């Protein structure tokens, strides 16, 4: 079983992993059997991170309750998401409750070294607490994250690595943690020798996405993060990446994402207040992981993503055909299931829903169902955040009420010959699907029923 290790660095890494987990849930085709997320973020209380960790736990709880027999073709929650580290997070040694100058042990340095350090780092930098990230300072991050390889968690990752496994790294180029963590991690993976399986890891196929500025932060004199420096930091980092990553073939595929339309967020240095709404760019970054997992890259490929139409909100029609094909069916089918479970749960858990006849006894009150409802609710919330963000990703109508097929933005559902319409048609397809399920266990059967039913409806109503 080929594994894909995904390193999500900093807040952006966690947010992209959130989008990627949603795509995994919906069954977007991923070219790996097992996904192993590893988050690198010293700011453990960062709300973006805790939300992603909760979502991935949610996914794993659902996946672990499913067995997926050979004949069950359902793609919902099919891929295994493994946790090899506590909270999926690679802990960096010696950063708890310490300032940066304590971390580098500044007082014990000789005078000339201290002078050099004070030239490279401001007093504010030296006094920065290490447990809320590097607050947009890659110069701090590059020192601290150099310790990654010494951590037990990194050794655990290396121990787990097998031949054929791939690595993908997510980072932003304009912050602190991601900008400094990506080149350091890549260098460690490519050239490091003091960890297990280093010969395999050094030669592994490695991809990465680096995200250029896609949001701004409000000016705040109290905050160390100043978004007006994002562009200059990006330019410096790009120049560094060109010389030290692209030109020396140390990476197989390097994806770049950028947008000139940006939203302005509240300026939080980190912690529980740092919870940004999901964004189109994070969604697109997750599609880069999908793309990487499905392809082989022998030499360094530099990739950018283009959209067909950028006049207003981004919809399915904004994507080029290949990307649309990749996303349209799984996300729409999952969205229709999410609507059933969130807006019509009373009906679908009742005796009136004929599929419940001799099936799903006790399922609706089970922890599996509450996990499933929780995740589908999060899926809708995730879409809502992206829809209201700037630039807006408007894939679905999130308020379909009694019209379940008016769900895809800008797409008029096809008419079919049937005396049933709307949710009656959905119910009919589910009742028919349950008779075709191959699964024996209720949990599997329930999701297989939705998969078969929604696939049929998608083909009838939306497939060109």
């Amino acid at each position, binding site marked *: 079983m080929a594994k894909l290790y995904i390193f999500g660095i900093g807040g952006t890494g966690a947010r992209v992993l959130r989008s990627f987990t949603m795509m995994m849930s919906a069954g977007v085709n991923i070219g790996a059997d097992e996904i192993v997320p590893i988050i690198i973020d010293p700011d453990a209380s960062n709300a973006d991170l805790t939300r992603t960790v909760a979502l991935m736990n949610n996914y794993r709880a659902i996946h672990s309750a499913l067995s997926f027999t050979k004949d069950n073709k359902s793609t919902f929650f099919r891929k295994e998401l493994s946790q090899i580290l506590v909270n999926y997070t690679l802990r960096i040694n010696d950063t708890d409750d310490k300032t940066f100058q304590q971390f580098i042990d500044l007082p014990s340095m000789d005078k000339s070294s201290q002078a050099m350090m004070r030239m490279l780092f401001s007093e504010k930098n030296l006094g920065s607490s290490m447990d809320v990230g590097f607050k947009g300072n890659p110069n701090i991050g590059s020192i601290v994250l150099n310790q990654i390889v010494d951590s037990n968690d990194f050794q655990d990752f290396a121990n787990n690595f097998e031949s054929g496994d791939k690595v993908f790294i997510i980072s932003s180029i304009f912050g602190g943690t991601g900008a400094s963590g990506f080149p350091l991690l890549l260098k460690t993976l490519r050239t490091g020798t003091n960890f297990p399986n280093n010969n395999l890891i050094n030669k592994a196929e490695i991809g990465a996405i680096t995200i250029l500025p896609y949001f701004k932060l409000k000016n705040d004199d109290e905050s160390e993060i100043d978004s007006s420096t994002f562009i200059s930091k990006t330019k410096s980092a790009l120049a560094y990446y060109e010389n030290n990553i692209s030109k020396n073939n140390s990476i197989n595929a390097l994806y770049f994402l950028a947008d000139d339309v940006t939203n302005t967020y509240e300026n939080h240095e980190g912690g529980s207040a740092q919870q940004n709404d999901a964004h189109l760019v994070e969604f697109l970054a997750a599609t880069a992981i999908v793309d990487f997992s499905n392809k082989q890259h022998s030499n360094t490929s530099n990739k950018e993503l283009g959209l067909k139409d950028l006049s207003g909100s981004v919809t399915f029609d904004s994507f080029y055909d290949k990307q649309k094909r990749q996303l349209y069916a799984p996300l729409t089918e999952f969205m229709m299931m999410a609507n059933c479970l969130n807006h019509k749960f009373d009906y679908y858990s009742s005796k009136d829903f004929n599929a419940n006849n001799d099936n799903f006894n006790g399922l609706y009150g089970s922890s599996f169902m509450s996990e499933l409802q929780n995740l589908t609710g999060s899926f809708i919330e995730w879409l809502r955040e992206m829809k209201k963000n700037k630039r807006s990703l408007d894939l679905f109508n999130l308020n379909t009420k009694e019209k379940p097929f008016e769900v895809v933005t800008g797409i008029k559902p096809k008419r079919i010959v049937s005396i*049933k319409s709307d949710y*009656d048609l959905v119910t009919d397809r589910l*009742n028919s699907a349950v008779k075709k399920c191959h699964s024996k266990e209720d949990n599997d059967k329930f999701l297989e029923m939705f998969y078969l039913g929604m696939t049929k409806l998608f083909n009838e109503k939306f497939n060109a």
Partner: protein
Amino acid sequence: MSEFFGSIYCWLEDFFGIELAEYLWGESSPEQLSNMFIGIGLTMLAISLVVAVCYYYVINHPRLNNWWGWLIFLGVNAAINFVVGWQWVLKDYYAGLMVKKDAATGKMVDLLIYTDDILAFGVTNMIDAIIAFIVFSYIIKWRSANCSRAPF
């Protein structure tokens, strides 16, 4: 077969009258010598089956997957069969086929069958149709995608 169809009607022959029952058996009128229960009974069964198939497999609507949805179709089946049974026999009545030869005069005289008896026979056909619909429902409902839970 004639015994079978005769018997499913004649358990209510007191309701629609012995005279009409004998006419339908084909034993009282020289103008009508066949067992009419067979034709009427087969038609009643066929209609009931068609209505049940419509309910469970043709219309097969999720909103009708309950006792009242099923009851609507039972009612429709009952109404159709009432009209069929009633009109089938009433046609003979107006055609003047319900007669017998008077032993004394040798002339043809009307049998003692009234339109109320024929109406009662329609009701009997309706009751049999209700029973047939219930039986068919329990036989065919299991493979219905949307209504296999109806009526219970």
